[in-house]
Structure formats: structure tokens, C-alpha cells
């Protein structure tokens, strides 16, 4: 499921998305990557990233970085925006900007890079540098040539003296700064011009007069170009400007003035920020099936880049509104925003605000929110007070839709920043909403499916193992990692006619058919045990029943009969159980044929000598077949290692050791379902003297995906 969502998002990503595994091999290559690197997906998948897109001289560093990350679990370049040279299929090199994230995927790491070709931007930068050069040359020449060049430039150019007053501004600069004429601009104090705007840098922090490149030059500091975001206090219009300044020195080399080119980069900066934001939001949404937490993360991400506060509401099956996330630029005011959200009734007015968005499925953009609109929307005095305190400048409500169905809405509000939300923001929010919708829908479907599977699985395992005098029982069932299918492993234990029967088995297959077969095998065993006492005969009965099924139905099973101090065992195609006594671990019993598979077969009863203080462990091959991150199998040796010395321990502890050893080995790698049952024969003294001893509770974490389930225990009564 998660992979379908990820693919959906990756296929539509504006950036090139390239994923690789721990070995540096490409595992994902989206259409943008095909266009960027000039190489088709089929050609790229499975090949080393280094060969495809990294110039030869950088490959060693790449491999070294990967190796170091895998060794220490952290890498200096992860999650930062970086620029580097990349390689196209035709061998040409070009500059790119990229972020790379590492994701723990089971036992293995995977790496995901979002890459953008920035050759055009670099080219534009070079062009501007050439222009400034030319200006310098012109300034050294005649005044007239200077006027002719700068006056006709479409980019705003200003010259300021040592007191920061404007001594020259070309017509483009006059217009850009919002003045009707050069004279008007000249007569306005520089500080007053600055005060008309809130100015912040790329990192969102305020930019002050002394940070401006021209001012730094006059202080004798080097002045890198500075990217600033200005929001006009009155109109709320935001712009991104790149300020580039150079000193103008007289013959003695003393700086008399500064020249500044103001480049309006609003469009490309917002596009770049939008791309980066979408990539990050997409990665967040694809990262987890816990969509409520994911939506909270996306809301946090939207603040303050897109808006000053962001809320996510979902509609549940009954049509009620459910607030899942509120994020505010100022954490201290978060409670205000939250209190405000609670003011809205669960059932909304279908004619305005969220109610209207839910009803129509259309976005609503309120660029300006005058006070009377607040007053109209307020329920009471306190509500209006809250609305005013939050300080709405502008608001944007966007539906989260799957097809024609509206699942909820994103609310974005601009307040403190004073900027007006516009169509650009609406498009961005709609794209985030589209991705969120897919994430929510998939998570809902998945959780429904896996809860059905869990319920069914539970009904196939005994609620509790019976208590058997003189013995202690414990069991574990570890469902397959996917969680959405019923597995084929099962066990059961019951008492019949003064004897105790215990079975464990594995039907081949998964899902509904496996569930039906499991039920059939258990039912047949339990019923037949009323009149058949021999485990071998019970297996033969199940074999006959399975052969009556229309489709091939095969099953492994181990059947154990316990009577006071005797144990009898028959095995059909199942791993032999392990007998743990002191430090010795050995298999007991004898192999017999798989059930339901072959004609003319029979099974044999084997008596097992279960000494007091020893333990018998029966398990399914999910344990020995388990694979770790590098493809190795858990195997019988590791199993025996985990169990040696454990014979005299309580049954639950034996099972606990087994499960821990397996989990450490797999560390979250894909796992098939697995079952194990331990039968511990209590030492004679303990069985007689301390019948109430109960230290055998296996852990039973309902909330864990891989959990011990149906942990039962028995002791002397």
C-alpha cells in the first residue's frame, strides 16, 4: 500500500526523484528524473546511482559517504539543500540542487533524493554579473553612457550616498519602490521607505537596515547578494528581491556611494519554495500510515513558510468535523488558535467558511478580512475577541478530496506576517491537499483491512492456553509484517478425557483460504480427539479430511499428547520440536509426511521423556526461515543458541528469549508469520509445593505490530 502512494506522489513530483538502496542501486526513478538525466526508468532501475548521475571524480566521495552513513547511522549531507554537479546520460555535466533523506525501511536503509536542474538559474546569475561588470566600465566612462545603459534597464537600479540617501534611481527602481516620480523618492528618508515593509530573509528572520548589502559595503564589509522577502504593510503584497550591490569609489579609492541592482525573483523563488515544500510534504505523507500524525507534521511544515497558522479538519463517517491539527507560527498563541477552533460547532453552516468548502468541495480564498466580516462570523463576544486577537489578515480554505468525496479541509491563515494569501498560495495548498487526500484514503483502507485480518487471526488462535497440572505452557504468535492478511500458522491446546492435547501447524497459503483451512484442521483435531487418543491417528484423520477438499490443501502439523508424566508425539511435515534440558538442546520425535499431500502414508507415535525441569519447544518454520537484512536465514543453530540453558526457566521466558532473538536478527525486516509453543515440565518439588506460582506471563503488547499474542500459562492447581 505505502508503495502505491509513494509511487503516485513520486510520479507527479516536479523535482526529479531518485531513490537508492543500501548498495547504492537505483530503486525509484520518476518521470522528472527521466527528463532531467535523459535516461528511461527501465534503464536506470537496479543500476548504481554513481554510474548514472554522479561525475566520475565525485563517485569515491559518494561511496565513502554511503559507507560511513551505514556504519554510524548519520550523514552530514542528509536533509540539507545542496548544490552539486550532476551527469546526464550523454555525458554532459550540469549544476543541480538537491536534498537527500534517509528512510529506515525494515532492516535496511533507503535513500531518497529530490533533484532540480538549476543550470538556467546559474546562467541568469552569470548574466547579471556580466551586467554589473559592464556598469563599472561604463561608470568609469562618460556620464551619458551610464545614463543610457542604466536608464533603459528593466531591473531597478539605485545609487545611494554614504548617508544611504538615494542619489540616483532609474525609472524601474522608482516604480518598484512605489513612487510616482524620482523627486518624490529622493525627498523621502530611507528609513521611512524601509518602514513600509516587513522584510525577512530566506530563513524567515527579520532583515534590518544594517544587513542590506549597500550598508555593509559602506561599513567596509564584503557584501554577498541578499535574498529578501518584502511584504508591503498596507497592501499585504509579498515580493522576493535579490539585492546586489557594488561600491563606487573615487580616484583615491574611497567609497563614495553604492550601486544596487534589485532583481525581482518573486516568481522563481516562490516556485522553488513551492517545489521544496511539496517534496517535503509528499515525503512526510508517504512516510507513515498514521495519517493524523502525518497531517500534524504537514501543518507544522506549512508554518511559517506558507502561512502563520494552519489547521486540518477531517469529516468522519457521520459527517462531523474533527479537528486533527493546528499549527501556529507563535507557539505561545497556539492555545488561542486552538480555543478558536473549538468555537466552531461540529455541524457547520453550509453557507459559509468550512461548511461551504465541505459542501461544495471548492477552495475559498479571502485575501482581505475586514473587521465586519469577523463580527458577522462571530458566535458571541468571546468568539469575536478571539478572532480579533488572532488577527486575521487573509485566509485560505482548501478541501481535501478523493474523487467527488470531501474528506476534510486545510485552513491557512495569514496574521502576524501581514501578507496577503493569493492564487499562488491557493495552488500550492490544493496540491498539498491532493497528496494528503491520497494518504488519508490509503491509511483508512489499510487500517480497515488489517483490523479485519487481526480479528480473524485472533479468532483462529485460542483465547488462552489451558492450565495443565504439573506443566506450564506459553505461546507466541507473530503475524506477518504486512499485517493485512491472515497467516497460515496456528496452535491449539485442549483437555479431553483426562489427557491434554496440543497442536501446532502451518497451512500453506494466506488469507481467507488459509483461515478456512486452519479452522478445519483445528475443528477436525478437537472432534476426533474425543474418540482417537493416538496423535498419529489424529494426524491421519486430518490428512484424510484435507484430501477431501477440492483444491490441493496441505498442512504441516505436530500433535503432542500430555498425560501426568508422559508425553507422546506425532509429526506431519513439521519441524521437530526442541527438547531443552540443562545446557543441552536437541530435537525429539520423528519426521512424518506432510498432511493432505501424499497417498499411502502413515504416521508414528513417539514417546518423549519429559524430565521435570525441562522444556519442549514446538515452532513453525517462520522462525528458522526468517531472513535478515542481508538475506541470511535464522536457521536452527541460532534457534538452539537462543534456547540453551533455558530449559529450567518458566515457559513464558523461554518463548520470550526465542522472540527476542528472532526480532534482533530481523530488526524489522519483512517477516512471515510465526508461531511457537513452549511446554515446561515443572520440577517435582515446585509442582507439589508451590501450585500458585505464577511468573509465566508472556508480554502481551496489543499495541505492537509484532506482538506476542495468546500468551497463556498453566501451573499446578
Amino acid at each position, binding site marked *: 500500500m505505502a508503495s502505491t502512494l509513494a509511487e503516485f506522489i513520486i510520479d507527479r513530483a516536479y523535482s526529479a526523484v531518485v531513490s537508492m538502496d543500501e548498495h547504492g542501486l537505483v530503486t525509484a526513478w520518476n518521470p522528472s528524473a527521466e527528463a532531467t538525466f535523459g535516461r528511461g526508468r527501465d534503464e536506470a532501475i537496479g543500476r548504481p546511482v554513481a554510474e548514472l548521475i554522479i561525475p566520475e571524480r565525485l563517485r569515491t566521495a559518494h561511496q565513502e559517504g554511503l559507507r560511513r552513513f551505514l556504519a554510524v547511522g548519520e550523514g552530514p549531507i542528509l536533509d540539507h539543500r545542496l548544490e552539486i554537479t550532476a551527469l546526464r546520460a550523454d555525458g554532459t555535466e550540469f549544476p543541480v540542487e538537491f536534498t537527500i533523506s534517509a528512510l529506515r525501511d525494515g532492516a535496511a536503509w533507503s535513500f531518497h533524493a529530490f533533484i532540480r536542474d538549476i543550470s538556467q538559474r546559474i546562467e541568469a546569475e552569470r548574466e547579471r554579473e556580466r551586467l554589473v561588470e559592464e556598469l563599472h566600465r561604463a561608470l568609469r566612462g562618460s556620464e551619458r553612457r551610464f545614463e543610457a545603459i542604466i536608464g533603459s534597464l528593466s531591473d531597478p537600479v539605485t545609487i545611494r550616498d554614504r548617508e544611504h540617501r538615494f542619489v540616483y534611481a532609474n525609472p524601474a527602481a522608482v516604480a518598484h519602490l512605489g513612487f510616482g516620480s524620482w523627486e518624490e523618492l529622493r525627498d523621502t528618508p530611507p528609513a521611512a521607505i524601509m518602514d513600509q515593509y516587513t522584510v525577512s530573509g530566506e530563513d524567515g528572520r527579520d532583515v534590518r537596515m544594517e544587513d542590506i548589502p549597500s550598508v555593509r559595503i559602506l561599513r567596509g564589509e564584503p557584501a554577498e547578494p541578499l535574498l529578501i522577502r518584502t511584504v508591503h504593510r498596507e497592501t499585504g503584497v509579498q515580493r522576493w528581491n535579490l539585492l546586489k550591490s557594488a561600491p563606487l569609489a573615487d580616484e583615491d579609492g574611497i567609497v563614495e556611494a553604492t550601486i544596487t541592482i534589485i532583481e525581482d525573483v518573486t516568481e522563481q523563488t516562490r516556485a522553488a519554495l513551492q517545489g521544496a515544500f511539496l517534496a517535503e510534504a509528499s515525503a512526510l505523507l508517504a512516510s507513515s500510515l498514521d495519517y493524523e500524525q502525518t497531517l500534524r507534521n504537514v501543518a507544522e511544515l506549512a508554518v511559517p513558510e506558507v502561512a502563520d497558522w494552519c489547521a486540518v479538519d477531517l469529516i468522519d463517517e457521520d459527517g462531523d468535523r474533527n479537528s486533527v491539527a493546528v499549527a501556529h507560527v507563535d507557539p505561545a498563541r497556539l492555545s488561542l488558535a486552538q480555543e478558536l477552533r473549538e468555537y466552531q460547532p461540529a455541524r457547520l453552516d453550509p453557507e459559509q467558511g468550512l461548511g461551504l468548502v465541505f459542501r461544495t468541495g471548492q477552495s475559498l480564498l479571502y485575501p482581505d478580512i475586514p473587521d465586519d466580516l469577523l463580527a458577522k462570523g462571530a458566535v458571541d463576544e468571546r468568539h469575536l475577541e478571539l478572532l480579533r486577537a488572532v488577527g486575521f489578515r487573509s485566509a485560505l480554505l482548501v478541501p481535501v478530496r478523493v474523487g467527488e468525496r470531501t474528506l476534510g479541509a486545510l485552513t491557512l491563515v495569514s496574521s502576524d506576517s501581514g501578507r496577503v494569501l493569493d492564487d499562488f498560495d491557493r495552488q500550492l495548498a490544493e496540491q498539498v491537499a491532493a497528496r494528503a487526500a491520497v494518504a488519508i484514503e490509503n491509511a483508512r483502507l489499510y487500517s480497515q483491512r488489517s483490523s479485519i485480518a487481526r480479528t480473524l487471526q485472533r479468532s483462529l488462535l485460542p483465547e488462552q492456553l489451558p492450565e495443565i497440572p504439573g506443566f506450564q505452557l506459553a505461546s507466541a504468535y507473530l503475524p506477518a509484517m504486512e499485517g493485512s492478511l491472515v497467516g497460515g500458522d496456528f496452535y491449539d491446546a485442549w483437555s479431553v478425557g483426562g489427557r491434554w492435547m496440543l497442536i501446532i501447524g502451518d497451512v*500453506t497459503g494466506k488469507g481467507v483460504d488459509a483461515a478456512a483451512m486452519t479452522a478445519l484442521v483445528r475443528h477436525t483435531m478437537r472432534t476426533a480427539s474425543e474418540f482417537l487418543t493416538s496423535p498419529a491417528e489424529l494426524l491421519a484423520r486430518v490428512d484424510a479430511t484435507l484430501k477431501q477438499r477440492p483444491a490441493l490443501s496441505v498442512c*504441516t502439523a505436530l500433535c503432542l499428547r500430555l498425560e501426568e508424566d508422559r508425553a507422546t508425539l506425532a509429526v506431519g511435515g513439521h519441524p521437530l520440536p526442541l527438547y531443552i534440558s540443562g545446557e543441552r538442546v536437541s530435537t525429539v520425535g520423528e*519426521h512424518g*509426511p506432510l498432511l493432505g*499431500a*501424499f497417498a499411502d502414508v502413515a504416521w508414528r507415535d513417539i514417546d518423549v521423556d519429559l524430565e521435570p525441569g525441562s522444556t519442549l519447544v514446538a515452532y513453525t518454520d517462520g522462525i528458522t*526461515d526468517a531472513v535478515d537484512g542481508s538475506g541470511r536465514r535464522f*536457521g536452527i543453530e541460532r534457534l538452539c543458541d537462543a534456547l540453551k540453558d533455558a530449559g529450567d526457566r518458566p515457559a513464558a521466558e523461554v518463548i520470550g528469549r526465542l522472540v527476542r532473538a528472532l526480532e534482533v536478527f530481523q530488526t524489522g525486516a519483512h517477516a512471515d508469520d510465526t508461531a511457537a509453543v513452549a511446554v515446561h515440565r515443572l520440577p517435582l518439588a515446585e509442582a507439589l509445593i508451590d501450585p500458585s506460582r505464577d511468573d509465566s506471563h508472556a508480554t502481551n503488547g496489543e499495541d505492537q505490530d509484532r506482538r506476542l499474542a495468546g500468551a497463556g500459562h498453566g501451573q499446578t492447581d
Partner: protein
Amino acid sequence: MVRPTEFKIRRTTTETNVTLLITGELDLSTVPVLAESIGRPADIAQTLTLDLSELSFMDSTGLRLLIELDQQARREDWKLSLIRPRHETAAAVLHSTGADAALPFEDAADR
């Protein structure tokens, strides 16, 4: 994930016999590949030989496929021939399930 040995099927066809030499691990992920590669044996040959001598691992899904093929061969009147795995892990599964005795196995050296 890197598997110890890559799963590979090498096909040899004569007029009456199709032989598939299978290398690597036969499990939940590779059984469908083998099943597809076998197709409908009755249409193509009198004898289908699965050479498992290079098989390093087999799980219950792999075993199930062998049983199905055996039953299919009896029904459709063609011959299934199986070559025993040399690797202990794969051979152990056949032994412990009784498949070794019940299915038409031959030793690799017999050929």
C-alpha cells in the same frame, strides 16, 4: 535485499523433454516466477524435469508447487522428474515432509 544466490532458471528443451535447472532460493517470492516459467507442461513435452540440484533453499510454497505438479502429471498423463537438491537446507525440507519419498526424485549423480 541481496540474496546469497540469485534465483535463476535455465531451460533446456529437446523434442520430448523440457528441463529447468533452478538455482538459488525457491520461496514465496520466487515460486510464482518458476510457476510462470513452467506454464502448461502437457502442451509442450512428454517429460518435465526440474533439476533442483543447485537449489539452496526451499520453503513450503516451493514444496506445494512440486506436489501440485506431481498431481497434475498424474491427471494429465505426462511425466514429472525431479533431481534432488545437493544443498542440505533444501534437501532437509524434502526429507522432513516426506516429499523425498513420495515425489519422483532422482539423485543428481544418477544422470
